[in-house]
Each structure stands twice: as C-alpha cells, then as structure tokens.
C-alpha cells in the first residue's frame, strides 16, 4: 500500500517537472533578453530538475529491488546539491554578464545597479 502511494507521488512529481521544463523552454524562447531568460531558467532548475529528482527517488523507494535505499539516498543528496548550487550559478552568471556589459538590459523599467556603478566611476575620475 505504502509502496503504491510513494510511486504515485513520485510520478506526480515527475509529471509536474515535465510541465515545468516545457514551460521553462518556452520561456527561454519567448523572453526578450538574457536577464529575463534567467527567470525561465530558474523555473527549469527548481521545478524542472529538483522535483523530478526527488520523484525518481520516491519511485525507487516504492519499487521492490535490493539496495533501493542507496538509489533513494543518492537522489536526495543530488537534489540537495542542485538546490544549493543553482542559485550560486545563476548569481555568478548574472553578475559577470552585467559587469562585462555584454548583454543589454533592454527592455527595462529601471537599472539601479548601472546608476550606482556609474556614480562610483564618476567619483574615481
């Protein structure tokens, strides 16, 4: 009984992950610039990979083969590492791109970071 419940929960999580990945890829195509696309990529990393990894772990726990706890544990640790590392990656990418000014922040409402950086450079001159 509990195996069935675990399997169903895992399959639901994987289905949600498939949906999130699809939406993220559509967003990557539709969004106008690099920084807005990062938001679509975040949908892909949390909804599209964190959830399905945990879902796969639950399915492994629900089926009956030896060493199933090993698969479950490995997947949980992998999911935690994905959750910890993906913000660091997005942040480093976005910061480097903005500092190098290789991607324009257009369209935009405002860009306070550029204002502050320009101010600092003005002080140096």
């Amino acid at each position, binding site marked *: 009984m509990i195996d069935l419940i675990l399997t169903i929960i895992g399959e639901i999580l994987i289905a949600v992950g498939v949906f999130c990945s699809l939406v993220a890829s559509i967003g990557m195509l539709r969004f106008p610039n690099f920084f807005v696309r990062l938001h679509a990529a975040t949908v892909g990393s949390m909804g599209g990979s964190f959830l399905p990894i945990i879902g796969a772990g639950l399915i492994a726990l629900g089926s009956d083969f030896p*060493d199933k706890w*090993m698969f479950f544990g490995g997947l949980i*640790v992998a999911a*935690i*590492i994905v959750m*910890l*590392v993906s*913000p*660091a990656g997005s*942040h*480093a990418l976005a*910061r480097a791109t903005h500092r190098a000014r290789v991607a324009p922040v257009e369209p935009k409402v405002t860009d306070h970071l550029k204002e502050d950086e320009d101010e600092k450079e003005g002080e140096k001159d």
Partner: protein
Amino acid sequence: MNTKTVISLLVIISSLLAISYAIADQATGVIPQTGLRNLASFYLENTLNPSNKSYWTASPEATSAIVWDYRGFDTFFETSVFYLAIVGCTLVFELYEPPKSKTTKQTELGLTIIVKVITKIVGILIVCVSASIALHGQLTPGGGFQGGAALAVLPILFIITMSRFALDRKVNDTSMIIIRALGLCGIGITVILPLFLGFITNNNAYIIQNQMKPDALVSLPSTIADKMMGGSLWMLNVSEYIAVGAGFTLAFLLLSLPERSFKKILEEEKYATY
C-alpha cells in the same frame, strides 16, 4: 601539397578504413552483439562464486574485480602512468618558487559572498559523497578512480571562487605531494602484502594476489562484519582515491599560479628572448 599534408591525410583515411573494417567485417566480434564473449562470461561467473572459490575475488562488482584483481597488473602500470604525468607537471614548474599572497584581506579576492559560502557548504558534501563512492567500490559502481576524480572537483571550485591563496595554509604543493605519496605507498604495501603473508605462513604467494588460488593458499579478508570487502580491492580503492585526489589537486594548484609573477622570473633569467 607537402609531405606533411599527405601523411596526415593518409593517417585519417587509414583509420577510417580500419574502423569501418572492424565494424563491417566483425573483426571485434559481432557488433551489436546479443551473446557474451568467453572472457566476459568467465569473469562474470567467477567474480562472486561461493561454490567454486578457486578463481573468485569476493566482490559482487565485476568491473572492480577486473580492474584490481584479474587485470591488476594493467591497472598498476596505468596508475604509474598517471603518477608520471603528475611528476612531469611538477618537474616543468620545478625551477620556480611559488609566489606568496600579498593581499591580507581575503574578502577582496574571488567572487561574492553568496558563491563563497555556498561553495564551502557544498565542499563538505563533495568530500562525503566522493568518499562514499570510493569506499563502496567493491559493492556498487564506483571505486578509487571515480571517487578521486569527484574529489578533485573540490580544489577547482575553491580556486575559482576564493582564489588560490585562500587554500595556502593546509592545501599547498608540499602537503599534496606528501598525501599523494602516502596513497601510492598504500598501493605498494597492498601489492606486496600477499608475499609477506606467504613468507610468514610458509606458503606460496603471488604479487597482487587477492583470494587464495589452488597453488597459493594466501588470502586477504573477504568479509568484515558480514559485508563483502573483496580483500585487496578495498585497500587499493582507498589508496587510489587518496592518490588520484591529491595528484589532481596538485596539478590544479600549479596551473592556477598567477601569470604575472612568472613573467618577472622569466625576464630576470633572460629566458624570454627566444
């Protein structure tokens, strides 16, 4: 068209023909195959066979058994190739003294605080995961090579996020050379251990012997606390893990030396006038 072009064209065309022949004429066995080759079936049948212990390795993982038991000598020499490559790396840099950090505040170096703190937390996870991969090499996919390669990710991350000088106190060239030498010593001791045991018990024994053979009645422990240990496989995996991790760390540390400090040395030695 000079001779060089002709030779390289010949090499490319002949390799293309050779591989095509191998695939089309089934020189490497039936590809894609459905059966099992004789050698493979021998290894698979004997790697954990309690009823016929004359060729067994006491490890349920056939790949690890081949790497460190059946083909142990091959792996031994491949390890020495790895060792010599790292020795070559250090020799290329031997003339120079590594520069010391001039900046006192570590916060000025590297990326932002977000990346630094996350790297520290992930670092401890990487150590545990790679150790688990190496220590379960005789039971599940994994082993010394894979664990060491996973461990070598850690110095790359630390060098990128907080600069090389954040590591300097504990992790430097000298300590890495010592740790790698310890790992290699572990491999050497495990390789000679059967001979020593045979000498004590007055039996016949071979180098890199793991379990007892019909003509050599010396065997390393096959189980500890009801868990399969695979005798020498476990010790060799752990030693290889330490050696590979420390060796790659050494290579990355040397590669990440700042270039401007070398330019000064080169100019002093009039080395750059070629």
